[in-house]
């Protein structure tokens, strides 16, 4: 079997496996963890894509929040079906991403990070301050589940238990994986790499730097909006405290610990850091301490993250 069909075969198995998980994993708590992990993976992949254009945004949680509130308001105030509010939240958040990205992505490194930090705070304060629209510090509760899917004659899928949510999130994650994987292996992905490696050379080779930075930023915002929408209709309650700066920091931790600059890095980082504290059943504070320590240790000793370490081990063993 040549490598391409081997890869496809493994991929196929993985897909079937993930589709079947709810069949043999009955514990709703574990399904909940799986859902949260997949949401984190989507966020980490998008964030990593932006970070590959040499910018570190500190406002990911604000985009998630924006998607969450948008979807909620579309469903509860304008009677949208969830199936319409979901993509709408994605698109509207992407638009927000473009609006914010255009003026800020021109700015270098740490100043860009600070600007996104400020933006994130502005959005959060908006959620708290505009009580009429966003419910203020109390947030919005009793958010309805997604509308049941009806395939006439076959089945009606209602969102009562966690399992339909699992499949919903799984589909979103597959979409996200496919999009980013294909982008990375195309001229768009190469252009982003070029921007990161040397924006001077990239420009002189005909790559419009701002275009790719904004594109990456907007695409990331799109998926963050999608995550926000799923989040809102899964937890049925959202409030400004769910979308703070420190959550944005957590998402950065996932990418860095997993290994930025690789495709699997953000995935591995999200799984590792979401599963670990959950299965250790430790309190939130300890969880956050672990995240912080992991970040510090990785940056100091393993700058290429877990994936970097794995690659080192693999190449060492193939050399010896």
């Amino acid at each position, binding site marked *: 079997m040549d490598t391409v069909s081997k890869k496809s075969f493994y991929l196929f198995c993985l897909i079937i496996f993930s589709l079947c998980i709810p069949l043999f994993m009955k514990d709703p708590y574990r399904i909940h963890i799986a859902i949260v992990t997949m949401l984190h993976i989507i966020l980490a992949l998008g964030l990593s894509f932006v970070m590959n254009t040499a910018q*570190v945004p500190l406002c990911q949680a604000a985009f998630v929040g924006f998607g969450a509130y948008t979807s909620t308001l579309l469903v509860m105030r304008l009677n949208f079906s969830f199936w319409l509010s979901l993509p709408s939240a994605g698109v509207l958040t992407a638009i927000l991403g473009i609006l914010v990205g255009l*003026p*800020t992505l021109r*700015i270098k*490194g*740490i*100043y*860009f*990070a*600070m*600007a996104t*930090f*400020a*933006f994130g*705070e*502005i959005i959060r*304060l*908006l959620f*708290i*301050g505009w009580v009429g629209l966003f419910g203020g510090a109390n947030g919005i509760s009793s958010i309805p589940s997604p509308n049941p899917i009806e395939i006439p004659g076959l089945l009606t899928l209602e969102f009562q238990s966690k399992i339909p949510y699992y499949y919903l999130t799984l589909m979103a994650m597959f979409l996200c994986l496919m999009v980013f994987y294909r982008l990375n292996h195309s001229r768009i992905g190469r252009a982003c790499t070029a921007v990161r490696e040397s924006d001077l050379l990239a420009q002189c080779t005909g790559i419009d730097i701002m275009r790719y930075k904004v594109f990456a930023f907007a695409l990331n915002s799109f998926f963050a909006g999608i995550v926000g929408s799923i989040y809102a209709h899964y937890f049925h309650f959202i409030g400004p405290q769910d979308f703070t700066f*420190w959550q944005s*920091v957590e998402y*950065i*931790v996932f990418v*860095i610990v997993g290994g930025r600059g690789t495709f699997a890095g953000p995935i591995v980082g999200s799984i590792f850091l979401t599963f670990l504290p959950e299965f250790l059943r430790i309190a939130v*504070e*300890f969880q*956050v*301490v672990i*995240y*912080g*320590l*992991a*970040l*510090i240790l990785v*940056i*100091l000793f393993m*700058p290429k993250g877990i994936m970097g370490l794995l690659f080192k081990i693999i190449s060492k063993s193939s050399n010896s």
Partner: protein
Amino acid sequence: MELIFLQTCINGLMLGSIYVLIALGLTLIFSIMGIINFAHGEIFMLGGFATYFIGEYYGVNFFLSLIISMMIVATFGVLIERIIFRPLREDPLNLLVISLGLAIVLQNLALIFWGPEDRSIPVDFQGVIKIFGMMFSNERLAAFIISVTLVIGLYLFIGRTKAGKALQAVAQDYEAAALQGININQMNALAFGIGCALASAAGSAMGPVFLVSPFMGIMPVMKAFIVIMLGGLGSVIGSVVGGLILGIAESFGATYLGSEFQNMVGFIILMVILIVKPLGLFGYRE
């Protein structure tokens, strides 16, 4: 009517003076080391807690415990600089990210060990003072005096002492300073230590005015970022001017607007400055 205006102004100055202390520490650290230290708020918090515990367990006078706290926290800061920041000297973005990690570790360790309750630092000089018909709490007044004293002290140190002048040299051009024989590592440690000491003092000074808790550093340091970006990264005058401006603006905001929108204004200013003139009012660093 004018009295309320004047009172608001002066309250603003007092509040601003605390921002100035925090901002000065941050800007000093930035101009010498090039780090934007997101964990600065936690240093501030540690100062507050240190003063609380020293006062609580040893019955020491407030001002004395403030000074002791400064020394303890500064030492801690120097350790952090040595272990965590120094290996990453040339990499500002990674430094920023690592300081984020440090911040969440410190916040949550504080939460784990000391619990989430707000504590107040009792002082012997509680009370209110009346000047020209305006009322000021003694605690705020004390905070203001502490801040002014430290700022003057810093000014004298930087301008008049050998170490201070060496710091100035490093801030201007660290390669040239190194060529002149100045020990960059020592200067970094010194700058970081002083920065932490200032933050610690600010935290201690805030203790009696507001309360001490693990998350008390978050908002003040965000304000401090606004201040130093407004005033210009690396500019001491900028920090002072910016801090006072923000303090006054917030004081007026609190009196005449709602508090969330008042906070938002600060961040809008920050974003606009970064987009339009990242160097701020007085900044000179690239």
